[in-house]
């Protein structure tokens, strides 16, 4: 039962990603070419509603289902890793039109060639683990 609820949340995520067309290579190209408001509208709405929700959750000290007060982890205060990592991520995102979530949603959608992108992403993750100590963070 506990497992099922996470699978259901994942199904909801997959449907939202598909129906919003955020898993579309075409939509990502359109976004990076600044030729439509669609993706900016989606991400913008999510961020604005997200900021309001997080503010309320913190202000009212809301609790999660297990009764613990919800805390939001702060990101580590390094800066180089975010810009370097971010740029490398962006290069791949524009090329494949897929960030990690949409890779898997696309595969379920029927784009089996996304498996090649997923294998690439796993190799990339492994490569990061291999080179981690030599990279500027």
């Amino acid at each position: 039962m506990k497992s099922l609820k996470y699978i259901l949340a994942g199904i909801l995520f997959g449907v939202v990603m598909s129906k919003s067309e955020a898993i579309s290579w075409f939509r990502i190209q359109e976004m990076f070419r600044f030729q439509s408001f669609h993706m900016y509208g989606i991400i913008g709405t999510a961020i604005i509603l997200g900021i309001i929700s997080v503010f309320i959750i913190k202000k009212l000290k809301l609790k999660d289902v297990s009764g613990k007060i919800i805390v939001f982890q702060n990101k580590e205060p390094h800066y180089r890793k975010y810009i370097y990592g971010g740029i490398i991520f962006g290069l791949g995102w524009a090329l494949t039109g897929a960030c990690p979530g949409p890779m898997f949603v696309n595969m379920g959608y029927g784009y089996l060639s996304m498996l090649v992108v997923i294998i690439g992403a796993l190799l990339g993750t492994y490569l990061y683990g291999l080179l981690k100590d030599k990279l500027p963070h």
Partner: protein
Amino acid sequence: MIELIKQPWSWYFSGFMIVMVMLILVFWGKSFGFSSNLRTICTLAGAGKRLNFFDFNWKAQRWNLLFLIGSIIGGYLSAHYLSAPQAMKLSSVTIHDLRKLGITFNGELNPEELFSLQALKSPKTVFILLIGGLMVGFGSRYAGGCTSGHAISGLSNLQVPSLIAVIGFFIGGLIMTFLIIPFII
């Protein structure tokens, strides 16, 4: 109800639903970040025996793997039961620009030139997909998160590091779109 879901979703409803997914996980005591799964899968494949980075308690991430399995099912259900009968409304300028690069808009989510099984016969296409995926995997772990972890969860929590990462996503995306894709596709 199903008929309503089948319609193409507006950007505001889509954005609202993404926040719902984030909040569901938050109230279950979890944090929305998809790319962590890539690290977990490496660990399950045995990478923890070679590298410390992968030697962690993956069971704490079991929920996220289940979420990943759900997302694949969600994609399948969308394609088979929830897809709109009409073609996607892509900007005509984008359609025109992509045609110049040899990519035809077919009304579907992804171009056949890159994502059909036929296209995989070309070693160049396989290389593009593999390298692209590699950069996404490497970059998301280096930056400590992807679109869900930084752009959605991080910015919702007003994290400056996430803002820097998102600016990075765009710098990389623009370089790829305007300076690299025209020469490799």
